[in-house]
Every structure is written in structure tokens, then in C-alpha cells.
């Protein structure tokens, strides 16, 4: 019995979350057994054999002219058809914007239990147990799956893609599925507000976030310059988003985005419990704040107490000198 992995694409390119899910599927296959099968939804099946290098043994390709863009009902019909074809014991998706919308639809079709935004999967005890953050990471729950298939979406940037198997070609098959595109459906007509090529906060490796210590929106240029030097994405605390200095999409925290970068630099952020909840799974946290008692220093790995208007430019310069 397979492990089935949903392969997300954008503009025909396979996204990193899909490779991360394939990597985890491959690792689990060594305990759970079974081939790793991928199910892909897109406009064309070109180039999919190369998913073999990322860990897929077989690829079921669901192609449809409307699938260039995400269609929840259509993709769900395709994935359900793949499940019927291979009867997997486990079905994985990345917990991306598409994955978080698609996986529940598939779970409802299958009558299966879905663990969302998991940070680890463990098959060692004989049964599969998923671990996932709840309450914005202030707690974790571990869940088991009484029904088959077990379904999970995996938090981006937590799981590693499989070490590439150069030259391995996956066996690609067309997948027939039952879906009526003429029925009333939500149609994506375009995109807007493009953030210009930088990765989304939820998928960023390095993040520099600014808070009220910056005193005004114009001072965010300090954060942006540090972010540029580090190749980082810019985030924000709720206080500065509510004040209108930064858009809501930049907010890190319980009612913003939950992030898991390898480096999180908090500039002028005091560290309210809701902010910490959004970034506490960062691998390394650096805090810069003039208040030595700021709660952020309790979670930071490294702290600098000082005036951010002096410290941040100095850090930016030092980073630039490294390159």
C-alpha cells in the first residue's frame, strides 16, 4: 500500500512544499513500507518523470485546462480518484495555502481524519502519530488515525526534501477523474498585490520583523535594509499592523502568520504572548530591544540590549561585510 503525496505546482513549477512532503513520504516508507506515489494537478504532465529524483516511484497526473490555476473542487476530485486507484495508507499535502484548502475537501470526500500543519510524523510505535502545534504553538497535540487513509498537511520548511536520486525517473500515468467543470464553481480570474518575488513569510528561511520600537512607519527602512543584507523577508508585530504602518500580510503572530524560519530577528518588538506564539518555532531567534526586561529576551537565543537605531544599521553593515 502506497504513501500518496499531493504535488502542488504554480505556473507549472513544482513547489518546495511538495518536495518536502515527498521527502517525508520517502522516510516514512522505510518504516511503513509501500511505494511513494505522487498525484499532480496541472495543465500538462510534462517533466513529471523528474519527480523520481525527489522520491516519487510513480506519478498520477491529473491534467485539465483549468488546472493551471487552483480549483478546489476539481483538484479534490482528482486526488480522491488517486486515492481510489492506489488505496494509500497515508496521504500527505504541504500545509500551504492550497494544501490547507484542498486537504479538508479530500478528507470530507473520503470520510477520513486530517491532521493539519503537522511538524512531525512518527510511525515507530506501530501506529502513525502526527504531532502538530495548537493555540498558535503555545501547545502541541499528538493525534492518531482510527480511519484510513491517515491524512496530514505538513508545515512548510520543517521537513527536508529527500536527498536527490539523480537520474531516477518516476513512472508517469494519466489519472482519469470525474469532475464537471461546467457546474457552478469558484473561478480564479487573476492575482493581485504581488509581493515581488520574495518568499511568503510562512515559507521564509530568514525573517526580520519590526515592532513599535521603530517609532514610525518610515523607520521600517532600517528593517528592510537589514532584511536585504540577510536575504530575508520582512515581518511585523500586530501593533504596527494595527497602526497601519505595515500590511496585515506581514503580521507574525497568533492572528497573523505562524513562521518557522531558521533565523528570526525581532527588532523593537517587546514579545507579547501572541507574537511569540507565531514565531517560537524559529530555529534561532535574535532580539534587539532597548528594554532588558522585554519578554522577547526570554525566548531569544541571542539578545542585544540597545537602541535599535544604532544597533540595526551596525548589524546591516557587518552582514554586508561578510559577503
Amino acid at each position: 500500500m502506497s504513501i500518496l503525496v499531493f504535488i502542488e505546482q504554480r505556473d507549472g513549477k513544482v513547489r518546495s512544499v511538495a518536495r518536502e512532503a515527498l521527502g517525508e513520504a520517502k522516510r516514512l516508507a522505510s518504516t511503513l513500507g509501500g511505494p511513494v506515489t505522487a498525484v499532480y494537478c496541472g495543465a500538462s504532465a510534462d517533466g513529471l518523470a523528474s519527480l523520481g529524483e525527489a522520491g516519487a516511484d510513480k506519478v498520477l497526473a491529473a491534467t485539465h485546462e483549468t488546472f493551471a490555476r487552483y480549483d478546489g473542487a476539481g483538484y479534490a476530485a482528482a486526488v480522491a480518484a488517486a486515492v481510489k486507484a492506489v488505496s494509500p495508507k497515508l496521504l500527505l499535502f504541504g500545509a500551504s495555502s492550497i494544501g490547507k484548502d484542498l486537504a479538508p475537501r479530500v478528507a470530507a470526500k473520503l470520510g477520513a481524519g486530517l491532521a493539519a500543519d503537522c511538524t512531525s510524523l512518527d510511525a515507530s510505535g506501530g501506529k502513525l502519530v502526527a504531532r502538530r502545534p495548537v493555540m498558535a504553538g503555545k501547545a502541541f497535540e499528538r493525534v492518531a488515525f482510527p480511519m484510513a487513509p491517515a491524512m496530514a498537511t505538513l508545515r512548510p520548511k520543517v521537513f527536508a526534501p529527500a536527498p536527490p536520486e539523480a537520474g531516477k525517473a518516476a513512472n508517469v500515468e494519466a489519472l482519469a477523474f470525474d469532475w464537471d467543470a461546467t457546474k457552478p464553481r469558484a473561478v480564479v480570474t487573476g492575482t493581485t498585490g504581488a509581493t515581488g518575488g520574495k518568499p511568503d513569510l510562512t515559507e521564509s528561511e530568514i525573517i526580520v520583523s519590526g515592532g513599535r520600537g521603530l517609532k514610525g512607519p518610515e523607520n521600517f527602512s532600517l528593517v528592510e535594509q537589514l532584511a536585504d543584507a540577510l536575504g530575508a523577508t520582512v515581518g511585523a508585530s500586530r501593533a504596527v499592523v494595527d497602526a497601519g504602518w505595515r500590511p496585515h500580510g506581514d503580521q507574525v503572530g497568533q492572528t497573523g502568520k505562524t513562521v518557522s524560519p531558521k533565523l528570526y530577528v525581532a527588532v523593537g518588538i517587546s514579545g507579547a504572548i501572541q507574537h511569540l506564539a507565531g514565531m517560537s518555532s524559529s530555529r534561532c531567534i535574535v532580539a534587539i530591544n532597548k528594554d532588558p526586561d522585554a519578554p522577547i529576551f526570554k525566548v531569544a537565543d541571542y539578545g542585544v540590549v540597545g537602541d535599535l537605531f544604532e544597533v540595526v544599521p551596525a548589524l546591516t553593515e557587518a552582514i554586508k561585510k561578510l559577503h
Partner: protein
Amino acid sequence: MLQVVCIKQVPDTETRVKVAADGRSLDPAGVTLILNPYDEFAVEQALRVKEQLGAGEVVAISLGGAGVQTTLRTALATGADRAIHLKSDVSSPDALAVAKAIADAIRPLEPGIVWLGKQAVDDDGAQVGPMLATLLDRPCVSVVAKFELAGQTAKVEREIEGGREVVEVPLPAVFTTDKGLNEPRYASLKGIMAAKKKPLEERAVDLGPAHLERVAFELPPARKAGRIVGEGAAAIPELVRVLREEAKIL
């Protein structure tokens, strides 16, 4: 048009987490329960659509124990017309069980729009909305950041990585709401008084077999203690050094 808003009562985001004695749940002692913050945007948008259309009904529905009636009354006080309490004492029911119970309750109402907050801040699952839409066989758009209704077509924007998608959706449909979609109104004193007289119907539900089994509820692993590396700009050389040599990040 009849609109349904699905709401959930959750622990306040200020809650400091303590694990209950059973090791599988949050210790409820001292926890304040509130309307899920994302659901406020759902209630508000339903009210705005009702105002735009000049007619129609907004029905609030929530699944949970007796205590959720407080949250349903909040929705009524803000402007919902009536409420349905699906009474279940199951602790942390799985999303599919919840979606099935709600689908069965609201299907006969034939809602033009079903609203939910994008996720509950206790479970962070973001599952019930798309599940409900699938069970009702309706189009669904999740994480809606902008909403306009023209006739029977909604034009919405949904947050995705790196921007937003613009989506056109024929009604009837299901939407889950993101923060920033609108500015939720507060209940007026008049609204609070009126809420006491609005219909709140209680129905016992049997959730059936669980689709997920929670085996543990635990605190996050403790982070290794950090340290202050220095003060002011003078600390920068040491900070860079530790990031390179200890954390091996730069």
C-alpha cells in the same frame, strides 16, 4: 437571502497554557472563553451583506457544550437574527465530525452564503470551512481578505503566498474570513438587550465515531536558554560571531 455564520467559542489568546490532569487537554481553570477572533469578521460580513440586500436573515450556529450559548448570544447581540446551538459535550471533536453535524443542521435552510472564520485560534485546523462546502457540494473560497457581492456573484480576494488570488464565485457558496476583511462592529446596549429575546434553539447532536484520536496534549519543548550577547552597537561583532560559529546560520 438566508446566511449562516458558523462560530466557535475558544480560549482567549492571552491564555497561558496548562495541561489538564488527563494529559490530553487544556486545563480549563482560569481560562476565559471568547468568540473566535476570526469568526468576528464572518459575523460582520454577513451583517454587511444583509444590509446591502436590505433584507434576509443571519443565522448563527455553534457546536459545543452549554457554555457556547454565551457566544451565540454575542452574535445575536451584534445583529444575527437567530441562533442554533448544536449541543455536544465531546471535548475537541475532530473537524469532520463538526462539519457533518453543521451540514446536517443547515442543509434544510438552503443558505445563500455560509460564513466561517478561517480557523479557530485553539485548534488552528482551518478545516471545517472547506469540509462543510464539500459536504454541501458548494463552491468555497477560504482566507477571504476582500469581498464584494453583485447580484448572485461574489468577487473575492484570497490570501496566497506572495499576494492574493482574485476569485469569482456564484452563490450559493461558503467563505472563510481572514483578519482585515472588515472592521467588526461592537454590540450596542440595545443589541445586547434585544439578543435576550431572539430565538436560540438547542439541539442535541451525536457526532458519531471520531476521525482523529488525540493521544496527548503537551507544552512545547523548552527552548535552550538564550543569552544577551552585549549592549548597543558594540555587541554586533559578538552577535555575528555567534551566529556564524555557534548557530552556524550566516
